[in-house]
């Protein structure tokens, strides 16, 4: 009898769960998996706002955004003006939950495409579900190299990956050496979860290939509340460039601790993430002048398309668009372009359209050389700028053709 009642309860719960999954006609549904709570919530929340901006750009007419495909029309013209409908779910950074939610999005919400999933762990499990069901999955952000290369046919990644960054850094060092800067050795400081580890590994491998000595590699836990020991080690090794692969609180902590311990290396190079967090500049902008950062995103001059996109984002969140969220925004726009070309919500057609994607630099908001996927689904034209903190914002300084201001090297001339 007890069992009966529970079974009934269970059924009721099931019925309740089914309720909100009603369909809206004609829209193209995109299921978006992000960590909206948990430790990576801040990134997930920012990316959510960015996706909503992308939705706005596609669904409403924005003729002021020149060059961006689908901006000037409302909806997807090839599909009779169909709108994008976004279904957000929160996987909380839990890979098993990400798997379950991918299932829900595919089988209950009947989404046509999946998008996500920030943490590589969650991307691993949710893309596998999409692969099994034959639903295209566009990765907006996860950078772990081994996400692609699993033989998946339904996986597309717009963002550059760890090895791209690493190679960009090496090219940058070469350029600097040609300009007569002294770079005898570098140091790699990385937080020790999947993001920091995979980027750190990629940089170390690239440095080895390019005969760039790594003076020291310091993996650390992002929850550290004291990093003076690491800073002292760096001071001891005297590298010419320190590359930080850090989240928000730890990147701020490093900057403060370096200031307190009176240590300024010739150059600090942040690998996006924490250095791009909107909290970074208000917290340590004054002491981190000259810090370089990786970004594929540049707000640009007032009046430019990118500037206007940033204004849209800012109106929504009160903050500037950061690189991580911008890459997600770009991912959504590139996906919308493919959906429009597919002209249908059939998975095979979307897959084919994604494969045929060929966006030119002027059609995108990011500093990529374009969007074009190889057979593993990786965007081979993804690339990055290097930017430098000058005053209250970062300015592009490398590659030269993107630079708005000359690079300052060493970062702070006063000390050292």
């Amino acid at each position, binding site marked *: 009898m*007890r069992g009966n009642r529970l*079974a009934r309860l269970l059924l009721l719960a099931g019925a309740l*769960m089914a309720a909100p999954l009603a369909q809206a006609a004609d829209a193209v549904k995109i299921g978006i998996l992000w960590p909206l*709570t948990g430790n990576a*919530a801040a990134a997930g929340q920012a990316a959510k706002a960015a996706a909503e901006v992308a939705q706005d750009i596609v669904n409403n007419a924005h003729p002021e955004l020149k060059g961006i495909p689908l901006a000037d029309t409302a909806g997807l013209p090839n599909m009779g003006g169909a709108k994008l409908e976004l279904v957000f779910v929160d996987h909380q950074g839990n890979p098993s939950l990400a798997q379950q939610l991918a299932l*829900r999005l595919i089988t209950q919400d009947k989404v046509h495409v999946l998008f996500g999933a920030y943490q590589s762990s969650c991307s691993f499990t949710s893309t*596998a579900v999409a*692969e099994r069901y034959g639903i295209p999955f566009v990765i907006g952000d996860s950078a772990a190299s*081994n996400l692609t290369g699993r033989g998946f046919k339904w996986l597309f990644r717009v963002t550059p990956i760890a090895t791209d960054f690493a190679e960009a850094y090496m090219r940058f060092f070469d350029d600097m050496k040609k300009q007569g800067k002294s770079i005898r050795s570098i140091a790699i400081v990385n937080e020790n979860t999947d993001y*920091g580890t995979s980027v750190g590994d990629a940089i170390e491998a690239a440095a080895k290939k390019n005969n760039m000595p790594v003076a020291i590699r310091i993996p650390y836990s992002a929850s550290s509340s004291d990093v003076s020991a690491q800073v002292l080690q760096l001071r001891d090794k005297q590298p010419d460039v320190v590359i930080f692969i850090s989240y928000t609180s730890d990147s701020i902590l490093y900057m403060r601790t370096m200031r307190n311990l009176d240590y300024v290396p010739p150059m600090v190079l942040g690998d996006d993430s924490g250095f791009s967090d909107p909290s970074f500049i208000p917290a340590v902008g004054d002491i981190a002048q000259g810090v370089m950062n990786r970004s594929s995103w540049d707000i640009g001059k007032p009046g430019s398309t990118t500037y206007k996109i940033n204004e849209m984002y800012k109106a929504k969140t009160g903050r500037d668009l950061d690189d991580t969220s911008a890459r997600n925004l770009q991912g959504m726009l590139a996906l919308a372009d493919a959906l429009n070309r597919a002209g249908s919500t059939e998975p095979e057609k979307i897959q084919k359209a994604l494969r045929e994607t060929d966006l030119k630099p002027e059609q995108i908001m990011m500093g990529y050389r374009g969007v074009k996927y190889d057979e593993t689904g990786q965007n081979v034209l993804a690339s990055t700028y290097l930017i430098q903190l000058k005053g209250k914002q970062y300015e592009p300084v490398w590659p030269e053709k993107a630079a708005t201001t000359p690079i300052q090297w060493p970062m702070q001339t006063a000390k050292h």
Partner: protein
Amino acid sequence: MRNASRAAFGWLALAAGAIVYPLVLPGAFYIDVGTTLLLAAATAAAWNIIGGYAGQVSVGHAMFFGAGAYLPLLVYKLWQWPPIAGLPFGIVVSLVLAVLVGMPTFRLQGHYFSMATIAVAELIRLVVATAEPLGAAIGLQGPAVGRGVWDLTFRSGLPYYYLFLALLAMVLATSWWLQRSRLGFYLRSLRASERAARSLGVPVRRCKLLALMLSAAFTSAAGSLYAVKTGFVDPESGLGILVSVQMIIVAALGGAGTLFGPVLGALILIPLQTLTNTYFGGEGSGLTYILYGGAILLIARFEPGGLLDLVYRARGLFAKPAPSSEQSRHAA
């Protein structure tokens, strides 16, 4: 014996419900929720053997779950074996861990055991997160696409559902046997008072160790099935403290030290989690956890013995407790 037959009927109804559930709600998502529920119930029931019956509150069961989850993916990574072949290895590692943890710490009583288990589990998580052969922070993956039936990479979630159901049935059957066996009596007696139990000839440390090993083995098996189903494990999802805490919450919520408690806890908690996440998760306002945490707090505040107590009180089953004699907060 009216109660006994009533209990038997209840179990039968529950088993029947669990077996037909996928047919009633055939969506892949519902099956996955059902599988999650079964996993939660199975791990909580496994934890219940040491934490409930024996009253030794382990806050480090993630080490067994993690061992179970890592070994299948490790044998796949190293030798390309079907992951499920790692299940027995996981159990062996868990048993070794149980002995290593249990031998010294069962001298300690009360919170010391809890603290020691937290510390060992955290230590293992941290070490694994730095161990390259174990995938370090990035974790291990299973075969993305199955190479044969033994890889158990089903497109449908149904086989997993029944695998987890079978596991839960095994844990519950073992618990039922345990309740009636000498070991079960000994565990419940030492939970009440180790000193009195020893005076009656109960080999307390050996019993606790046996219970921990039994509990560890089942937890490990659950971890293995989890890894085979998910195809992925990293230090956080396999060995994180939340893994341990979830087992405790599920068991304690339903009623620790009872046969049905962990199942009841899972029946309430997992739908609660799923519902709050379905309705409020997409907003990302944190409301999911506010409701979830609030519900746990209220239950602990008003039903400290677990919800099963409430059920029993409501049914007035006290007059003649079933032979299993579920723990109950009697007002007499």
